[in-house]
């Protein structure tokens, strides 16, 4: 504890650290954590507007605005410091809070309320942050990984004229994500939920002048929206039952208000699952994520690997009580998760675009997280969320480095090959050694090989699935367990395939281009290294108890086993209680009555074997550059390459009918009926006017006649 004796840190970390557990947890400027990225977004936004003005002037003059080679304009130098800076400071503040929270045994979340957001009748929502172990973990992951990705972006996006706009959007995204993970009530979480969806759209369609990329952004937002509908319905149901939407109130009262396995809680969890599938790209709402690769690669790393897509998992973990109360809801979560994991893995096997492989890999790993929280292993699901953030962000950033290098090389010789197609790469380990090593670390991690991070988290999940296979719905969970194993094998295979095609073998890019291939600058390699360290050692915070004593756990060398699990206990306590109450001893039992160490060893060995087989298989295949390569035409290969034709299916079944309906509404109802009615009203007025005008003949005799007629009428009325 010596470090805490330093007076500066002591003040920052607070008295709790010195006094020890028992003192209350005092949050340290939590609002600033959330506010800083917003301020960064505003500053960068102003810079972006100024830059846009200047660029508009140039474009109006008929030219094209490019950045000068040496001294970049002020609008492009400010975001370099403001962008990563605000996130870095936010991360530092989160760290302070973390160290303040560590020694305290926090059983209830600390809610910091700022002001009342809505107050109508009985419905009251406050703008409040909730600080407990789960939100703290999420904040650490979000700000930490975001910071590394911001630094990486400085190098990656340096040549782009939209540089300030990029950082404005990225900071805005971090702001919304932080609102999401620290929100103290469903509506506040939903604000963040929607906000990250918006930023995702803005960033995917960053290069919006390309209609394909703009369409990808729209697709992401629209598919997300379908999920949001589910989330909203769940919120309505909850409000109807509880009269409030604060987490502490709802989740605290849930076991009393809702009946176990009842219709209401099942409906709520299923609708929330719908929302989560939209945000976390599970079946059936995953189609937007592969298309989202149209955005810049750091965006894919941040949003579609480490943070936004994990929002669904976070939601399930946060409302774990509700899912524990609904076995059907949990079954659905686990089922969709594992099916998605396997399904996406099959598609990743055949893709040639390096980012597409990683995208499907993300979908697959998210499936694993869903499987984890579905079987009741909430801590395991969140653990995998964390480790996945590390190695998937690393993989994406690494691929970004590869694409950056390929792009530069191809640009020099003006060859218009696709820099993202792996068939155009090969043997890049000579040119990008740092990238090569760090990506291999990530690959080993994702394949679940000891001692890297993915091993501990993925193993835990598969283990928990096995445990669940002994309880109710055993048949389902057994199948899920088998499928999860299959998906793990496929994961190892396709990731190795990616590595071999990209970095090993002979270089296919071309002799001329190869001379321009070189490693990426420091701003990009340092984050890669940092993430590699986390991917390598991040798993050790949650070594399962069972293996702790064995050689796999370094013979108990670590101070504690399952540290993360114990730390998160207060958050999942209510859910765990319910599970123990209803599932009995099965909730804690081991699937095979022992042999945990053996199982762990076997899984690592199996993964290694798959990696070696993959290396052999891929090296043997003769790979041709993309322009010369034929499209896969043979049966299964074609089916997987075309993504099981799901996009085409959605297009035919959903998109076309909706477009047809819209066209009908437009042509028939709007233009025909409504416009017709309005026009008819106008025409009627015209007709009446025309009829009236007939009386204006301009001839005096007519007027005299009509006058006389009037006199006649009056006389008549007087006489009769």
């Amino acid at each position: 504890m010596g470090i805490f004796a330093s007076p500066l840190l002591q003040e920052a970390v607070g008295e709790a650290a010195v006094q020890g557990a028992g003192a209350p947890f005092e949050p340290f400027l939590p609002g600033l954590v959330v506010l800083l990225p917003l301020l960064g977004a505003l500053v960068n936004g102003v810079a972006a507007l100024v830059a846009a003005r200047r660029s508009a002037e140039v474009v109006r003059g008929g030219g094209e605005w490019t950045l000068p080679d040496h001294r970049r304009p002020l609008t492009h130098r400010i975001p370099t410091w403001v962008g990563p800076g605000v996130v870095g400071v936010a991360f530092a503040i989160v760290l302070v809070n973390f160290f303040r929270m560590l020694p305290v045994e926090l059983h209830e979340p600390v809610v910091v309320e700022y002001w009342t957001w809505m107050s109508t009748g009985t419905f009251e929502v406050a703008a409040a942050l909730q600080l407990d172990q789960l939100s703290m973990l999420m904040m650490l992951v979000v700000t930490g990984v975001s910071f590394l990705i911001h630094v990486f972006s400085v190098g990656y996006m340096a040549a782009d004229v939209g540089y300030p706009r990029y950082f404005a959007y990225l900071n805005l995204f971090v702001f919304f994500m932080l609102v999401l993970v620290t929100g103290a009530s469903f509506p506040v979480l939903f604000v963040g939920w929607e906000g990250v969806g918006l930023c995702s759209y803005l960033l995917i369609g960053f290069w919006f002048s390309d209609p394909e990329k703009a369409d990808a952004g729209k697709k992401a937002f629209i598919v997300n929206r379908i999920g949001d509908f589910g989330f909203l319905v769940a919120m309505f149901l909850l409000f109807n039952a509880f009269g409030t939407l604060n987490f502490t109130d709802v989740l605290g009262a849930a076991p009393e208000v809702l009946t176990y396995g009842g219709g209401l809680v099942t409906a709520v969890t299923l609708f929330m699952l719908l929302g989560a599938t939209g945000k976390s790209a599970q079946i059936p709402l995953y189609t937007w994520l592969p298309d989202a690769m149209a955005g810049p690669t750091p965006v894919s790393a941040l949003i579609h690997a480490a943070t936004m897509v994990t929002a669904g998992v976070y939601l399930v973990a946060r409302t774990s009580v509700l899912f524990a109360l609904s076995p059907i809801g949990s079954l659905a979560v686990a089922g969709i998760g594992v099916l998605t994991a396997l399904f996406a893995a099959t598609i990743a096997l055949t893709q040639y675009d390096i980012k597409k492989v990683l995208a499907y890999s993300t979908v697959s790993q998210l499936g694993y997280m869903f499987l984890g929280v579905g079987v009741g292993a909430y801590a395991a699901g969140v653990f995998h969320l964390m480790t996945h953030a590390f190695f998937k962000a690393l993989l994406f950033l690494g691929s970004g480095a590869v694409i950056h290098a390929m792009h530069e090389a191809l640009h020099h010789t003006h060859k218009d090959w696709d820099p993202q197609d792996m068939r155009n790469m090969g043997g890049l380990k000579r040119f990008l050694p740092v990238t090569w090593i760090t990506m291999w670390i990530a690959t080993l991690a994702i394949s679940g090989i000891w001692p890297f991070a993915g091993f501990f988290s993925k193993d835990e999940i598969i283990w928990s699935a096995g445990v669940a296979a002994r309880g109710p719905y055993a048949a389902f969970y057994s199948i899920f367990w088998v499928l999860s194993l299959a998906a793990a094998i496929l994961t190892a295979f396709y990731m190795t395939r990616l590595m071999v095609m990209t970095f090993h073998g002979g270089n296919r890019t071309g002799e001329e281009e190869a001379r321009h291939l070189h490693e990426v600058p420091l701003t990009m390699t340092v984050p890669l290294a940092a993430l590699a360290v986390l991917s390598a050692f991040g798993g050790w915070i949650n070594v399962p108890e069972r293996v702790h004593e064995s050689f796999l756990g370094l013979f108990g060398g670590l101070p504690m086993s399952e540290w993360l699990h114990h730390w998160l206990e207060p958050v999942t306590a209510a859910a765990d209680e319910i599970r123990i109450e209803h599932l009995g001893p099965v909730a804690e039992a081991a699937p095979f009555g022992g042999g945990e160490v053996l199982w762990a060893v076997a899984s690592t060995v199996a993964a290694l074997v798959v990696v070696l087989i993959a290396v052999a298989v891929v090296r043997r295949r003769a790979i041709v550059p993309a322009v010369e390569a034929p499209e896969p035409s043979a049966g299964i290969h074609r089916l997987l390459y075309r993504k099981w034709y799901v996009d085409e299916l959605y297009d035919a079944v959903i998109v076309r009918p909706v477009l047809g309906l819209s066209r009908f509404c437009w042509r028939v109802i709007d233009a025909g009926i409504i416009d017709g009615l309005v026009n008819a009203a106008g025409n009627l007025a015209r007709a009446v006017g025309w009829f009236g005008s007939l009386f204006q003949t301009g001839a005096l005799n007519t007027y005299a006649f009509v006058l006389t007629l009037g006199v006649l009428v009056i006389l008549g009325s007087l006489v009769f």
Partner: protein
Amino acid sequence: MINLLFYVFAAVAIGGALGVVLGRNPVSSLMFMVVTLAAGAGVYVLLEAHFLAAVQVIVYAGAIMVLFLFVIMLLNLGHDYQADLRGGLWAVLAFVVSGAIAGLLAPSFRGTEAGPDVAGISAAAGIDQALADYGAVGVIARPLFTDYVVPFEITGILLLVAIVGAIALAKRTVR
């Protein structure tokens, strides 16, 4: 005797009116009008409205019709022999409407009741008495300058306005 005279005057009046309506050229229409006015004056005398009869001849037939004649001569319309009667449907319609008005007016011709007696004397006898007392002019002048002096003065202003208006409308604009 009075009845016979009346019927003669009536026939002349109607004949004159027909002549006005059906006359081909404006001057002949005008002459027929003068005849009608004269017959009307005659009827006034029969109704013991002597002053009005005189005024009718002097002002109406003498001044107004002469004014009409001056205008016709000024515009050189005297030679216009074009038929300007609207024929066909119009005439029928006009006939129908006019006939209808006549028909509606008809019931009111029989048995007009006498007005209220003033101081025990019927209206006709009152007028006769006033005629005898004040003479033909006096019987009009007396109410005109006592009970009706305000309309009298206003009519004076009206005449002034009419003069100004007529001059302003008819004079040639100076180029």
